[in-house]
């Protein structure tokens, strides 16, 4: 064995790659060859130094730094998937429920796309409707207009109308003509519904009617809601114009909570109203009881018309509209003891702890899929995210929540129809308001 071959043995020995006989060979050679022995010492030294190289760590979280980028990627994928989604628009929306387990990236794409693109023009339509309503309201009511303009909550609700007036004014102008007929409250309500629908169309059955009408929004969840409505827990899907929503998801959640306290029956809608395109999708049937007021829209047919109109305007309004009216999709729920609020918005699940009027963010975790709805255990210690897959399997993810944030995630998947138990905090408050809000209208309903 010559020295060159021995060098290879040395190298392999450094990597613990020699078997016993080879080690013996190496040792024997090193014993009688000072040069190789010397070389081996140097290599061992180098090897030790290399092994001791500092395991450098990034100066700050790289993942955190790319989260916005990742969101953007999701949106882009969504956009790509949009065309695909539109082709299937006729399908029942329920089937496209977001399910974290089964959803493909495409699926996410669909979800997001609605938000980004279609949303916008529909939102514009809603705004127009709101404007029309506003006009009516001005004529017909003296309600205080102190509410924040931003909230487009229930258009149907007169109270909310006042609040919305402001916002409506801004945006309505352009689209008013198209909406023309909107003068009727019903039509208005419908349009708003559509907007929502458009947004969430594929998203799922989620209904987020802050007020009362889950049933309307979601075929799968019939009148459950009415029963539960009295409960303090609210589940809402809220769509808020991006403007307001930006940076203030906390605010929106707060708003929701406020609405719970029935301060003024007439006002609540507007507050909750954060769910802008509030839709009063009142299908006459469900609403009948609580809401319904004079302003409540009952005709689904109108909706269809609206939708078409919206579509037409879509192209015209383009990007500008988008920037102005971009909607943010949210799912909100208040714990039964009213100590915590949970909100899903833009791929993040946030937990807030109520402190008087304010809310403090306790924790936030990434959660890509939009929950169909969110519910709480009776003791307010566990929150559940519900998803219905296309095959009707219902998956429920549960977290224990508290001041420590989210803990102990578990999940359960069940076959069969999705049964949603909604309790809407706002329902109580709004009982008298005679407002139906529905953020989402199931396709079936929509098509009348």
């Amino acid at each position, binding site marked *: 064995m010559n*020295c060159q071959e021995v*060098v*290879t043995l040395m*190298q*392999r020995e*450094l*990597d613990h*790659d020699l078997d016993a006989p080879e080690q013996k060979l190496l040792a024997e050679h090193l014993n009688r060859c000072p*040069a*190789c022995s*010397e*070389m081996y*010492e*140097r*290599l061992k*030294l*180098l*090897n*030790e*130094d*290399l*092994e*001791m*190289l*500092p*395991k*450098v*760590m*990034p*100066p700050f*979280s*790289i*993942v955190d*730094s*790319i*989260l916005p*980028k*990742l969101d953007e*990627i999701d949106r882009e994928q969504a956009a790509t998937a949009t065309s695909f989604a539109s082709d299937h628009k006729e399908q029942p929306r329920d089937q496209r429920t977001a*399910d*974290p*387990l*089964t*959803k*493909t*990236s495409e*699926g*996410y794409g669909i979800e997001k796309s609605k938000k980004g693109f279609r949303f916008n023009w529909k939102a514009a339509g809603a705004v127009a409707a709101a404007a029309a309503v506003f006009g009516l309201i001005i004529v017909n009511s003296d309600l205080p207009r102190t509410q924040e303009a931003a909230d487009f909550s229930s258009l149907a609700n007169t109270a909310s109308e006042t609040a919305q007036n402001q916002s409506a004014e801004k945006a309505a102008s352009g689209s008013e003509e198209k909406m023309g007929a909107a003068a009727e409250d019903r039509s208005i309500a419908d349009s708003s519904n559509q907007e929502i629908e458009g947004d969430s169309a594929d998203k799922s059955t989620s209904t987020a009617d802050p007020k009362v009408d889950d049933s309307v929004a979601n075929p799968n969840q019939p009148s459950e809601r009415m029963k539960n409505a009295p409960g303090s827990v609210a589940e809402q899907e809220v769509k808020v114009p991006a403007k307001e929503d930006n940076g203030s998801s906390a605010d929106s959640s707060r708003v929701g909570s406020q609405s719970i306290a029935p301060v003024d029956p007439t006002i609540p809608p507007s507050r909750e109203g954060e769910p802008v395109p509030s839709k009063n999708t009142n299908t006459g049937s469900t609403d009948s009881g609580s809401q319904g007021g004079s302003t409540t829209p009952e005709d689904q047919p109108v909706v269809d018309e609206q939708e078409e109109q919206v579509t037409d305007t879509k192209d015209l309004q383009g990007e500008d509209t988008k920037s102005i009216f971009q909607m943010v999709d949210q799912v909100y729920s208040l714990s039964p003891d009213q100590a915590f609020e949970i909100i899903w918005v833009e*791929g993040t699940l946030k937990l807030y702890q109520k402190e008087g009027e304010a809310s403090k963010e306790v924790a936030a*975790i*990434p*959660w*890509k*899929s939009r929950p169909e709805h969110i519910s709480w255990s009776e003791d307010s210690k566990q929150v559940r995210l519900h998803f219905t897959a296309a095959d009707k399997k219902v998956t429920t993810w549960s977290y224990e929540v508290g001041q420590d944030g989210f803990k102990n995630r578990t999940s359960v998947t069940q076959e069969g129809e999705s049964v949603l138990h909604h309790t809407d905090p706002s329902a109580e408050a709004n009982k008298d308001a005679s407002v139906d809000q529905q953020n989402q209208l199931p396709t079936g309903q929509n098509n009348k």
Partner: protein
Amino acid sequence: MVEQELIRAAQSGDRDALITLLREIEPYVYRTAYYLVHNEQDAMDASQEALIRIYTKINSYEEKAQFKTWVQRIVTNIVIDKFRRSKPTVSIDEHNLVFLGKEDVEKEVLSSYAAQDIREAIDRLPEHHRTVVVLRYLQDFSYNEIAESLNLPLNTVKSYLFRARQQLQTMLQDYEKGGVRG
């Protein structure tokens, strides 16, 4: 380094799991990038790009390969493609790899090389040699894992690694003599 279960959840669309996964591999990604580019800013940029690529390509990972080698392949490819500055590496004449002269044998043998010198020396290695060294020493990869990461034959990996160590040893020896430094 990462549970299969987490990877599967991430692949099935659980964004939560995917983000968690990225957080777990982040230090490993950065470490490789840092030693390959020898520059914090570029290392951060390369790491971001690698993590984003992993985020978007997670479904292309197949379990027949180890996840960690799949990750390292992505990082090294990105660094080699985009971040490796075009600075010429010092070509080391293999004929210089002669054994020590007799003079100051003892002194040299016993002294440890400064970490800084080692980093600089690594930085001057030819691309593939440097990459192999980084995977071997910063990721504690075996020959096979390195081969899997770089899509190289096993013998090539050994060859690169052995040559890299000899080159490093030579460079460091020169440093000590106040020679080729810089």
